[in-house]
C-alpha cells in the first residue's frame, strides 16, 4: 500500500538553528514528490516539485532533496516567519492520478 510518512511530527528550533525535515515514502512508480507549506487555517502553498533521485531544488532558506526512498527539506538559518506546517506529497504513475499527502511536520522557530 502506498504510504507517505513525515518526521518529526513537530520541531521547535531557535532562530538561526538549521535542521532537516524528512519525508519517507513507499510508492510504486513514483512520478513526482511535492513539498508544500501550510499556515494555520489556510491552503497549502506550493514550494517544490522533485521528479528523480538526486534532484535538488532551492528557494531562499529552503532546499529539497530526493532519494529513491525519501526526501529531505533542509532549512538553513530559519527565521520566525518560517514557522508553519510543511507537507510532503507523492504522485505516482497510474490511472488514478491522485496524490497522497503525509501528515506534515509542524515547524516552530523561536526568536
Amino acid at each position, binding site marked *: 500500500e502506498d504510504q507517505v510518512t513525515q518526521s518529526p511530527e513537530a520541531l521547535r528550533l531557535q532562530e538561526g538553528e538549521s535542521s532537516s525535515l524528512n519525508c519517507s515514502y513507499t510508492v510504486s512508480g513514483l512520478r513526482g514528490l*511535492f513539498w*508544500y507549506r501550510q499556515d494555520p*487555517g*489556510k491552503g497549502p*502553498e*506550493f514550494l517544490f516539485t522533485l521528479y528523480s533521485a538526486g534532484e535538488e531544488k532551492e528557494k531562499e532558506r529552503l532546499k529539497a532533496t530526493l532519494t529513491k526512498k525519501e526526501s529531505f527539506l533542509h532549512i538553513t538559518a530559519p527565521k520566525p516567519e518560517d514557522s508553519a506546517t510543511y*507537507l510532503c506529497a507523492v504522485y505516482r504513475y497510474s490511472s488514478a492520478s*491522485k496524490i497522497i*499527502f503525509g*501528515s506534515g511536520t509542524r515547524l516552530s522557530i523561536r526568536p
Partner: protein
Amino acid sequence: EAGVTQSPTHLIKTRGQQATLRCSPISGHTSVYWYQQALGLGLQFLLWYDEGEERNRGNFPPRFSGRQFPNYSSELNVNALELEDSALYLCASSQTSGTETQYFGPGTRLLVL
C-alpha cells in the same frame, strides 16, 4: 495572475442539511481537485475533475459529490451533513490532467452543528 479562489470562506450548517462549496481554478488550468482537512488531520483526497468529467474519487460516501462547469470552475456538494463533516475543504487546480503541480485555494471552513 489570480490564484485559485473559493467561496464562501466560512459556512455554518446543521446536521442533515446540504452544503455547496465553490471553486474557481487558475486561468488555463483544466483539472480541479477537492480535499478535506479535518482539524489536526492530514489532507484527504475527495474528488478530481478534468474537462468536465469526474476522473477519480477518494474513500468518501456518495453524499459527497460535485461537478465541473464548462469554464472549469467546480462545485462540491455535501448532502445529509454529519458533525464529522466539519473541516477545511480545499480546492486545488493543475494545468494538465493530474500530471502537474497542484495549486491550492484558501479553503472553505465548514462547521456542522
